[in-house]
Every structure is written in C-alpha cells, then in structure tokens.
C-alpha cells in the first residue's frame, strides 16, 4: 500500500553551490523517495515520499549524514496532570503520532515533555492542541520560565495541602465514629440506626466528591482515550465502597456501611501525593542550584569607564572587570591581572586555579584573591554554565533502558488489576467460607470490600517514579561535581562497566612534553649550551622544541638570535650562534654527524627505560649536553587509578607510543594492562576487541581526537574538555582534567543504578506481596491505601538519599 506524502524541510548549513545537489542526491538514495528538490536561496528541501516505505526520521538522518542540519524546533512543555507511567506512555504515543514531531521524551517526575519538531510541518500550537485534546493540562510559560514554574509548583503544592487538610478534617471524625461502633464505645444498636449512618454519609460526601474529584476527572480522561491509569483504580475502589454504603444507610439492603473506608482511601492517597509532590520538587534542586550560580550584573569597561551591565546585555568582546570575592559573569580570556579562581562549582575541583594573562575563565566561578580584566568570549546561551544546564535537563528528560521494563509492566498493570479485583469479588462471593452468624457482614459486602482492597493496593505509582526520580537526582548531583552525563542510558551503562580504558596522552598524562632532566657535559656552565639549544629550537615547530623553549622561559634564560639555522626532518636542527656551530637532535642525528655518545651511554638506556625522549646538544662537534623530555603524569592520576582498582575495575592504558615509553608510564601509574603502538585510527578497533571478550568497556579520552573510540565503547568519557562541553562526542563529559572525575562518574552511576534497582524492587515486591494478601481478604482497604501511599513516598525518598552519598 502506498501513501504519498509531501513535506518541506528547513535545511541549515548550505554554503556552496554543490550543497543543493548533494542533499538531493542523498535524499534520493533513500528508498521510497519519489522526488527531492532543494532550494538554496530559501534553504528548503521539498521531498515527496511514500510513507509506507520510509519516514521523516530516515529523511532527516540522510540530510544529517550528508553534513547538513535541519532547523528543528525544540519544545519543552510542562504538563501538569500526568498521574503515572501509563499516562506518560499514552501522551508519548499521541505526540509521536503527530506528523513532524520527532524524539519525544516525557519525564514523569519533572512533568516535562520535550520534543523536537519540524516547524515547516507542524507548529507548536498544533502540538499543544493535541496535548489538550488528549486530556492533559499545560502550564503556559512566558518570560522567565524558572519563575513561572516555581510559582506554579508552589501553587500546586498549596492546593494539595488544602485538599489534604479538608480530607483529614472530615475523615478523622468519620473514622472515630465508625470504629467507635465496632469497638463498643457506644452500642452496636446505635451504630445500626439510620440517623447515625446519615451522619457518616454527610461526613464522607465532601471527601468523596471534593477532595477526590480530581481522581474522577483523571479516570474519565484516561478511559476516554482508551487506557487506564491509577486514577481509575482510586476512583473505582473508593466509589465502590461509597456507593455500596448508600443503600445500606437507607436500609434497602442489610449490611455494614463503609463510608470511612472510601474517605480514608482518598485522604491517605492524597497524603501520599502531597508528600510526593514536595519531594519531587527536591529532585530538581541541582538544576535550580546551577541556575542560581549565574551572577546578575557585570562591571564592563567601555572607553575607560566602568559601568554595571546586566549579564543578559553582555556582548562578545566586552572587557569585564572582576574584583576579589565576585563571580566571573561569563566565559572569557584574561587580559590583565592575576588571581586565583574557585571553579569547584563547575569542575568539582576543590583547589582554586591560578589565572593570569591568556588563561580562560569560566562564567559563574568565584574570584578569590586578586582583580583581573577579561574579554568575554562566550555569552548568553553559549556559556559553559548554560550548556551544562541544558545538557543536564536533556539527560533528565531522556529515558533509561531499565525504565522500559517498568513502562511495559505499567501499561498492562491497571487492566490486569481490574480483572484480578473482579476475580477476587467472584471468588469471595461464591467460594468464600461461610460467615459466622450475627457478624453484621454479608457475603456480598465482604467480597466487595476485598475487591476494593485489591483495587487500592495495586496503584502503579511507585513503579513509575522508581527510575526517573533516581536519574534526576543522579544527573543533578553529577553536574554539581563536574561530571556531566548526557543521557540516562549512559548513566545506567556506566554503572555496569568492568573495564576502564584510558588514553595515555592528555588523559593520564598532561599531554604536553616537558623537560625533566638536563645533563651537563660541558666544561663551562649548564646555561650556555642550553641557551644555544633553546635559541635554535625557537625556530622549530616540533613539540619537543616547544618543551625546550618553554623550559628556557621558566628558567628565565635569555634567547639569542642564531646567525643561521637549518632543520633536518626527523633528526633535529643545526645552526650557528655566537660564532659556534650548534647541533640539536636525536641519537640518529648525532650518529650522522659522527659525534660520540659514549660518555652518556649508561644514561641513555636508563632514561629511555623511564620513557623519556632524549635530545642531544653538540657545540663545535663536541657533545656538551643532553636534555630529557617526557610527557608527565598528571597529579592525581596515580591515586585515581588506585581507586579504580579498589572499585574492582580493570584498567587498560591505550597509546600510540612505543612499548618502552608506554611501559614506563604504565609502571608509574600502575595500570593493569597496556596496549601500545596503536594508531589513532585503530583505537576504536582495540576497544571492539575488548568488547568481543565480553567486557563492558568505558573509554576515557580527550573527546575530539578519540571520538571514534569513545563512540565504540559502551560508555565514552571525555576528560578535561573545559568549556567545549557540547563539542565532545562522548556521553559523559568531565569538566576538569583530573582523572579523579572518572572515579566520581563511575561511583555516581553505580549508586544511581543501585538506587533504581532498589526502587524497582520495592515497587514490584510491594505489589507482588500485597495484591495476593488483599485478594485473600487479609488487608482492609484503609491499610491498603496507607501502604500504597507509603510506597510512592518511600521510592522518592530513597532517590533523594543519593544526594547524601559521597562520590569522592
């Protein structure tokens, strides 16, 4: 069956004349695309395709693969009336069914629905209409979204509190009166009187229809759209008890009244929801904390005059002054001044970082000791802080694989419970043991009340909350510790890894070669031959040369202009300085120039074993010095690797270096295994080999050069990307360069995964145990409601406990 569709897609990134043809070609490669026409001037691609053979997603992937983007709209809507996981999947289905809506993700605990949409196919208003039609309410946010949200949340909690108080005011006397009859506070006879029962009914009515009204509305909407959620169970359960009691009150049928049961069910579940709403607010506290970090104003220097400007009005290139004790308003580069800046709120590193001219500063960090001026390089939504917030929000909106299980169960859960409840009723009515005479309870009412217990106990709320609340707390905690986890899936998988593969250069080591030893073989002093070597190396672009020049700068050695110089690729550099001929180069260079290295033979082999690279210096054809250069291990790498071992992780170092250098570094830091002499392009296949041996592998690298390996691994961690968070192609990004962040990330993921498992276990076990208990008539409905409220509150509090875990 063919179904022809015509869509227009807004393409971004078209720059050259060939772009249009390239996109057309790529679109036509997709089966079932009938025609594709790309207009370069208005940046639109008109595509006609057969919807039975392909879909919009596939078309967009084609365009993205060709190297272009689609200008997707991004909507983040706050849905107010999501009751449980089955509501979430119902809304998700509705949204996904809209043409032009892609990548829908709904978070039950934050009540946010996020999606991307193609603005040329569907508008935001149309999406909102679909949501309303499906029976959900939205909070319209204009202006400052956080404020609107905070206010509305507060209003919601206030409303919940009001309903709860009314519920308690009516339910408590109701409970006392009805129990009083049962326990003989007053005579059974009085309790059987119609006027007494009328009092009970009067007390029960406001609870049933005012406090509990929301459940009727929710249940109606849910049933109308062809599914069943927890509102249905609550409404069914409490109404059954309430409605059955009415004819009993008027003596139409004989038996016991159950007004207290219906009222207490509603009040207790309200209590649960109220506590849940309060703690749910706490799960997103990390984001609020991050948002609060941004200072409001900045001192901008414009033409020698200092003016205070709102951070929203800052422009790129503005020169900003920061005094001690003030926060850095946006990202930038220091122009003048010197200070120590506390970056712990973003990087998790406790020690303030020294900043002077040329160093990068990050917005929202705290300036400690001195004043400095800097130039703004990133403002508004491009700042590191803004990126972190966006990234964490995205992560919290994403769905962990483990949640799918809970979703699948929830979807069939409510209908199954209703069937079970009916079976319970039938079982007790027809097969129940005979009642003792004069108990005042009929066969019918006993069956009915047991059915109500089953309906009430089986609310799936706790299951729906188990995963998202833990993910929210986990990702939030990560963000405030400099560990940014981009998806829930990464968080879950990181909790399961057994092997940590560490790239050497830039991950374990600093990534910049540094001079470690100078060996003076001359009769004169050290500086003169080193000065000549450094002066020559100033003209080489080799990284080893840079290390030598850097060392000269550190030692304040003045450099002189060489009279001539010549670089010999792969060997070194030669030249003439102060009338002397100078040769700086490796062992082969010295051999080529017939310069004897006999004097330093022992040193050579020792230093090479330590993984150092050696550069020799000869003046007037006599060996006068030797420089050892090594890429030094970062502070903290040794400790971090030791901690990984304590956590039962296997560590593997991956490097392109030769075996000797690799072994030397490996020995220093104590990794379990070394894979050396790996070409950059082969890193991902090495990861694949490890995975083929059945290992769950996390790869830690610099995020840009190691991108393919990071993608191949089960989880990729990009380390020390600093301000380029969005660039890194890893699912986990560490703001600081300290390897300790890897330990934190894994520990956090383990805790979160454990919390999710505990939550799911308790949510399931509670249903597994208590549903049969209720079905066999051993649980009165009021206790069932209490247990059900408790389970949701338990799950949310258990997730909040994550906040107090130490991750190092």
């Amino acid at each position, binding site marked *: 069956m063919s179904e022809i569709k015509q869509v227009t897609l807004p393409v971004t990134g078209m720059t050259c004349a*060939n772009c249009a*043809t*390239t996109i057309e*070609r790529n679109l036509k490669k997709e089966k079932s695309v009938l025609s594709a026409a790309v207009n370069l001037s208005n940046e639109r691609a008109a595509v006609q395709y057969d919807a039975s053979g392909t879909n919009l997603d596939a078309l967009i992937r084609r365009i993205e693969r*060709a*190297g272009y983007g689609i200008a997707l709209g991004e909507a983040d809507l706050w849905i107010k009336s999501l009751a449980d996981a089955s509501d979430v999947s119902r809304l998700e289905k509705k949204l996904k069914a809209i043409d032009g809506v892609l990548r829908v993700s709904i978070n039950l605990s934050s009540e946010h629905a996020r999606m991307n949409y193609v603005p040329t196919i569907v508008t935001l208003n149309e999406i909102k209409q679909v949501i309303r039609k499906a029976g959900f309410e939205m909070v319209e946010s204009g202006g400052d979204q956080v404020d609107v949200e905070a206010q509305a949340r507060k209003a919601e909690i206030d409303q919940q509190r009001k309903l709860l108080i009314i519920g308690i005011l009516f339910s408590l006397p109701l409970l006392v009166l009805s129990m009083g009859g049962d326990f003989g506070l007053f005579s059974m006879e009085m309790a059987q009187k119609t006027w007494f029962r009328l009092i009970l009914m009067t007390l029960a009515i406001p609870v049933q229809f005012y406090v509990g009204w929301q459940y009727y509305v929710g249940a109606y909407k849910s049933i109308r759209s062809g599914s069943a959620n927890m509102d249905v169970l609550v409404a069914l359960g409490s109404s059954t008890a309430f409605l059955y009691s009415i004819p009993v009150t008027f003596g139409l049928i004989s038996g016991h009244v159950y007004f207290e049961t219906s009222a207490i069910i509603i009040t207790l579940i309200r209590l649960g929801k109220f506590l849940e709403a309060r703690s749910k607010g706490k799960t997103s506290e990390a984001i609020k904390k991050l948002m609060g970090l941004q200072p409001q104003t900045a001192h901008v220097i414009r033409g020698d005059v200092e003016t205070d400007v709102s951070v929203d009005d800052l422009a790129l290139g503005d020169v900003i002054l920061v005094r001690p004790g003030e926060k850095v308003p946006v990202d930038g580069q220091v122009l003048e001044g010197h200070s120590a800046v506390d970056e712990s709120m973003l990087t998790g590193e406790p020690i303030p970082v020294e900043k002077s001219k040329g160093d990068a500063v990050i917005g929202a960090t705290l300036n400690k000791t001195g004043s400095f001026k800097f130039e703004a390089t990133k403002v508004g939504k491009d700042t590191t802080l803004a990126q972190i917030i966006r990234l964490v929000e995205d992560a919290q909106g994403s769905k962990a694989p483990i949640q799918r299980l809970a979703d699948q169960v929830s979807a069939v859960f409510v209908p199954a419970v209703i069937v079970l409840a009916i079976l319970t009723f039938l079982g007790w009515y027809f097969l129940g043991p005979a009642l003792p005479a004069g108990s005042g309870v009929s066969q019918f009412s006993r069956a009915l009340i047991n059915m109500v217990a089953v309906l009430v106990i089986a609310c799936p709320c706790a299951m729906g909350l188990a995963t998202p609340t833990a993910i929210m707390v986990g990702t939030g905690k990560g963000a405030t510790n400099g560990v940014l986890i981009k998806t829930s899936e990464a968080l879950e998988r990181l909790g399961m890894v057994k092997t940590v593969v560490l790239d050497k250069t830039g991950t374990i080591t600093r990534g910049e070669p540094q001079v470690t030893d100078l060996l003076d073989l001359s009769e004169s002093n050290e500086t003169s031959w080193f000065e000549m070597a450094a002066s020559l190396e100033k003209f080489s672009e080799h990284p080893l040369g840079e290390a030598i020049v850097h060392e000269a700068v550190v030692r304040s050695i003045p450099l002189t202009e060489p009279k001539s110089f010549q670089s010999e690729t792969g060997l070194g550099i030669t030249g003439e300085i102060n009338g002397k001929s100078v040769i700086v180069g490796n062992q082969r260079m010295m051999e080529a120039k017939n310069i004897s290295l006999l004097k330093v033979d022992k040193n050579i082999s020792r230093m090479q074993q330590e993984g150092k690279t050696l550069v020799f210096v000869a003046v007037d054809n006599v060996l006068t010095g030797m420089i050892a250069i090594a890429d030094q291990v970062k502070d903290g790498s040794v400790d971090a690797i030791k901690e990984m071992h304590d956590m039962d992780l296997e560590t593997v170092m991956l490097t392109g270096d030769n075996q000797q250098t690799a072994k030397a570094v490996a020995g220093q830091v104590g990794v379990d295994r070394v894979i050396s002499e790996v070409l950059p392009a082969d890193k991902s296949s090495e990861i694949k080999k490890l995975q083929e041996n059945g290992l769950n592998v996390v790869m830690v690298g610099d995020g840009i050069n190691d991108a393919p390996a990071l993608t191949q691994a089960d989880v990729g961690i990009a380390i020390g990307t600093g301000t380029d968070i969005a660039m890194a192609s890893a699912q986990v990004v560490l703001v600081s360069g300290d390897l300790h962040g890897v330990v934190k990330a894994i520990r956090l993921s383990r805790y979160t995964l454990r919390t999710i498992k505990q939550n799911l276990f308790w949510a399931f076990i509670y249903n597994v145990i208590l549903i049969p208990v209720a079905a066999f008539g051993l649980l009165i409905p009021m206790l069932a409601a209490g247990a059900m409220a408790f389970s949701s509150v338990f799950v949310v509090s258990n997730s909040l406990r994550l906040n107090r875990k130490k991750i190092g």
Partner: protein
Amino acid sequence: MESVEYSVPAIHCMHCVHTIKTELGDLNGVKFVEADLETKKVDVHYDAPATPKAIEDLLAEINYPVEK
C-alpha cells in the same frame, strides 16, 4: 591495497570535503578517503572491486571532476 591521488579544484569548503568522503566511502572497495581543502587533493585507498575509473566517474557525477 592500491592508492591514487587526484587533484580536484572544485573543492572549496568543508562541505565539499565531507561530501567527497562520504560518497567515495560508500563506493564498494574503497577503504580510506582523505580530501584536503587547502591542497584540493583527494587521496583514495582502495581494493577491488573499486577501480580508478569508478572513482573518477563518481567524482564527476557528484560535480567534483578530476583535473587531469
């Protein structure tokens, strides 16, 4: 593995480089493609069934003809 290098003067932006890489990369037998924006050179490593002819034809088809 065989390799060839072509001069393709039509390369003038990173999109061109990307297009050449993905298109040639899709050609059966091609193992490695490097296109350079500065030098306007395309370096292709390939095995059978790819042939220089097939590579040149594809480059011509996507509007990046080889300069002889």
